[in-house]
């Protein structure tokens, strides 16, 4: 894993001022630390070697207290700045994700599923917190401070300076070596985590099913087993990734120890003064402190960096889209089309045509590709081979030339498994009561009539009523192309007749109607038939 993703820096660039200020504050902090070392040493040697009274050194004491206060102020400022920096970038990323996904410009929804995508939006982005507020500023600080302090040490005692300056590069080298080693392991840990959360959602969504099958209790044990497996895998990863901090700690503390011993021996020999020795001893940990902080934050930031890969995949996605707009649709004609799916053989759809004013029955055995053709026409699925032509009063257009959002504004659709936003029946059908009659949904059958609230889980009405409501919604939207996926799947014969009558009326008004159905009477009421054979 790269410690610094260039795509992340693209966002950092917008906040360059923040970074510059952070580095300036850190530099002032280093200056204060060097001053503190000199002041402390002068006080200690003043007492120990010159036996001066503390009252005689009151000005030094006053400066030391000022230095402490200055460090406190800088500590506040640096935390404040980095937190603001991270807040800004996080909200930029969140906004980007919302626009991309809600705008239908990314196929992330199909790839990840709603649960994982939502997880990315909330916890995923919060994982970037450590990265932006701590790791990135610290990286710049670590590049500047150790050298500055190292030079200050060398000015006091060039031998100690050489030891310090020689060990500084060791730390990033260790870091990079072990970082490379842990990249695969970290990726694996993230995958397990995603798998685990998906497993949880699935388990809880299916709890009613498990309960009915009397299998729900057994899952407690399985949960424990999976948790244990996850723990073992994570520990394997951590054992390796903690090695890098072990290496860093060793370099840092061992070189302080080495310095102390060598200074002690040189003091005994008389080749060094106590003042120089103490200044070096106090400053030495300051050299390694910023680098150790980088490594500490690196582990915190690692999760964030993996998450950022997923986020940028979505943000950088460019949807295939046309630019043409059309006023109407006279016909849609296609050659043989194929769509490939992962994990199953590709689906082939024979050439066909839809024309205005006609009802087209889409028939074929279950699984043959009826829903796939519908997804293609809605612009949700990309075809692998084949060609679709849209004929309008302005002439013919290739399907890919037409702007997708505009295209969707021309059509209306009833999906096989309808969802509604949390709202009322009236809102869903644009307060159009006649569309409810069209699908033989009696307002009196609904608990609160037009005001019946359809909640997030949509429990207020039965499955059959929900499907009728979705059909009414499709009827209520003025459109050139009406696509209905199994509109009569769970309705009785009387309702079916009513729905078929409504379909004929709509066709007469010039709409193109495409109905996927298994019901013989619905198929019989169509004028054209589009047949898709079994795979």
């Amino acid at each position: 894993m790269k410690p610094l993703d260039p795509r992340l820096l693209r966002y950092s660039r917008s906040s360059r001022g923040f970074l510059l200020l952070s580095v300036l504050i850190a530099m002032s902090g280093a200056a204060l630390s060097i001053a503190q070392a000199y002041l402390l040493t002068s006080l200690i040697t003043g007492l120990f070697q010159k036996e001066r009274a503390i009252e005689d050194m009151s000005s030094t004491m006053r400066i030391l207290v000022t230095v402490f206060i200055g460090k406190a102020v800088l500590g506040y400022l640096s935390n404040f700045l980095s937190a603001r920096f991270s807040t800004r970038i996080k909200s930029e990323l969140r906004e980007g994700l919302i626009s991309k996904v809600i705008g239908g410009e990314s196929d992330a929804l199909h790839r990840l599923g709603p649960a994982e995508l939502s997880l990315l939006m909330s916890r995923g982005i919060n994982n970037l917190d450590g990265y932006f507020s701590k790791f990135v500023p610290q990286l710049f600080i670590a590049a500047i401070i150790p050298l500055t302090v190292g030079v200050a040490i060398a000015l006091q005692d060039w031998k100690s300076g050489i030891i310090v300056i020689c060990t500084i590069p060791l730390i990033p080298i260790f870091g990079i070596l072990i970082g490379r080693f842990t990249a695969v392991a970290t990726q694996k840990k993230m995958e397990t985590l995603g798998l685990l959360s998906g497993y949880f959602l699935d388990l809880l969504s299916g709890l009613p099913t498990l309960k009915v099958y009397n299998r729900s209790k057994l899952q407690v044990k399985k949960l424990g087993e999976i948790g244990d497996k996850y723990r073992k895998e994570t520990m394997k990863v951590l054992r390796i990734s903690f090695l890098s901090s072990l290496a860093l700690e060793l370099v840092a503390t061992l070189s302080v120890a080495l310095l102390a011993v060598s200074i002690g021996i040189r003091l005994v020999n008389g080749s060094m003064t106590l003042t120089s020795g103490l200044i070096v001893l106090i400053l030495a940990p300051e050299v390694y402190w910023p680098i150790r902080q980088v490594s500490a934050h690196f582990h915190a930031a690692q999760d964030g960096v993996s998450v950022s890969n997923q986020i940028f995949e979505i943000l950088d996605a460019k949807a295939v889209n046309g630019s043409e707009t059309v006023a109407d649709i006279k016909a849609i004609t296609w050659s043989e089309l194929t769509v490939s799916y992962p994990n199953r053989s590709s689906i082939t759809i024979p050439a066909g045509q839809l024309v205005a004013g006609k009802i087209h029955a889409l028939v074929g055995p279950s699984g043959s590709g009826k829903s796939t053709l519908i997804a293609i026409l809605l612009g949700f699925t990309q075809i692998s081979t084949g060609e679709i032509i849209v004929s309008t009063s302005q002439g013919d257009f290739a399907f890919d030339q037409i702007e997708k959002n505009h295209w969707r504004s021309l059509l209306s659709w009833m999906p096989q498994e309808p969802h509604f936003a949390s709202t009322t029946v009236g809102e869903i059908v644009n307060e159009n009561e006649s569309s409810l009659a069209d699908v033989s949904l009696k307002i009196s059958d609904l608990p609160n009539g037009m005001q019946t609230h359809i909640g997030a889980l949509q429990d207020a009405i039965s499955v059959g009523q929900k499907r009728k409501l979705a059909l009414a919604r499709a009827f209520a939207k003025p459109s050139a192309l009406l696509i209905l996926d199994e509109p009569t799947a769970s309705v009785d014969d009387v309702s079916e007749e009513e729905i078929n009558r409504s379909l004929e009326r709509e066709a007469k008004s010039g709409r193109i109607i495409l109905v996927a159905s298994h019901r013989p009477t619905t198929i019989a009421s169509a004028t054209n038939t589009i047949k898709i054979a079994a795979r």
Partner: protein
Amino acid sequence: MKKLMRFVRPEVPALLQAGMIAGISLSMSVGLLACSAWLISMASTRPPILILEVAIVAVRFFGLGRGIVRYFARIREHDVALNIQTKIRQSIYSTMEERMPTQLIGVQRGKILQGVVSDSEAIQDLWLRIALPWIAALVSGASGIGIIYWLDHPFGVLAGIIFLAAMFVIPFVSILTSAGSEQRTTEEELFDGFIQACDSIEESLVFGTNESVRNELMKTQERISASEKKLASVAGISESLQMLFAGSTIALAIISSAHAFLTGIIPGANIAVIVLIPLAIYDGLPTTFAAFSQVTTLVKRAESLAPYLEPIAPDGVPHQLSHDDVTLKFTDLVPDTVKGRLLPVSAEASPGKPLVIQGRSGCGKSSIINAILGFVGYSGQITEIDPGSTSVMLQSDHLFATSIRENLKIGRPEVSDREIMQILEVVELANLIYSMPEGLDTHIGPYGFNLSGGEKQRLKLARVLLRHTSVYLLDEPFEYLDAQMAQRIALKIERILVTKTLLIVSHLGLRLSGQSNTLGLVATMQH
């Protein structure tokens, strides 16, 4: 918090142990600086080298040991935290399981996920990032103050008091200033809104409601951002407080050791030791204290989990009473959910005499099954059935994101592949499974994405048919199937379940053998 503590309690010794190890590693940095300071001060008086030998060995020991001990402390900490996490998850699941189905139905799906995955993971910071580092800091502080006390009693007491004050005052201020942040609720809102938006995104694109969904989410995101900004303004308070505590201790150390040295209480070589130890003690604290700003949020999250934290129940053994010859009968039945809309109905089903209930949507077909299962109230009489010997296929049945075989085994875990294939022949899925490269091991993607509606329906049907029970209640088993296929499968089911009691609810006009009964439901017109 109390409930949470019940799950943590068995792990407390392990937690303390991890905190102690971390504390020892921090104490080693204190030791390193103290020994080095003494070594250098002593060396400057140019004594015989032998006197310094012990200090030289100690300095090397602390320099080497610090990193190694820290490594083991880290590993121990994470292991303990992950263990606790699994226990919390298990108890959440089993509590939800106990309270099914009424509890779960009302809860939003996004909330459940946030609750289980996110909360249970986040609250591990309570011990990993907050309790453990605090214990470690206390241990290292105690060892450093101990050395000071050994060298200079009065100042040791004073430094101890200041250190304890810092250990309590700074976290307290940190918690106080960060309290009242509403970040957690808004984040949850965004999460819920997003999961709902994702479910219906294709429809919102067609019906043009995606703009309003987007605006709604953007507003929530702005609220999150605003509360994050508020938190940023208090982020540095604990670090500057820690600097002030450290600074005052060091200043007092200089004044006090000056006095002690001049009055001959301490030798000169100890001045640097007493002055520099506070530097080492307070050095490691900023990260410890910064984490306390999360306490309020984390406690809130832990409390939101509380309703789901109950002791883990022992594994239940599914009972498989297989007494045949059950007659399922209901008389003058009106489920409460369709009261006033359905005239009282009576019918019965017995082995060899299946019952088919037909009627238009919303007339109460599914409510009859729910009444038989006791999920909804009703008036009239129903023969009691043993839930352990009844198989039910509901419209809300869920296919799990795992292999086809695993999904079918939920029906009966000990089922053989041969039996599975026989049943798949019945529901006419066998050819599809044969054509798949991985056969029964094929995973059905997120939400069964790559199976068609009819295929999913038949898979659920196969799962229920694999059960060995005396009663079968099937609610709309043939949805998404064409009439001929439904008719074919219905007859095959009737044949294989001829010794069982079978009830099918369907909107289709199914024709079973001569022995079957059909109950046509008609909703009354008045409301």
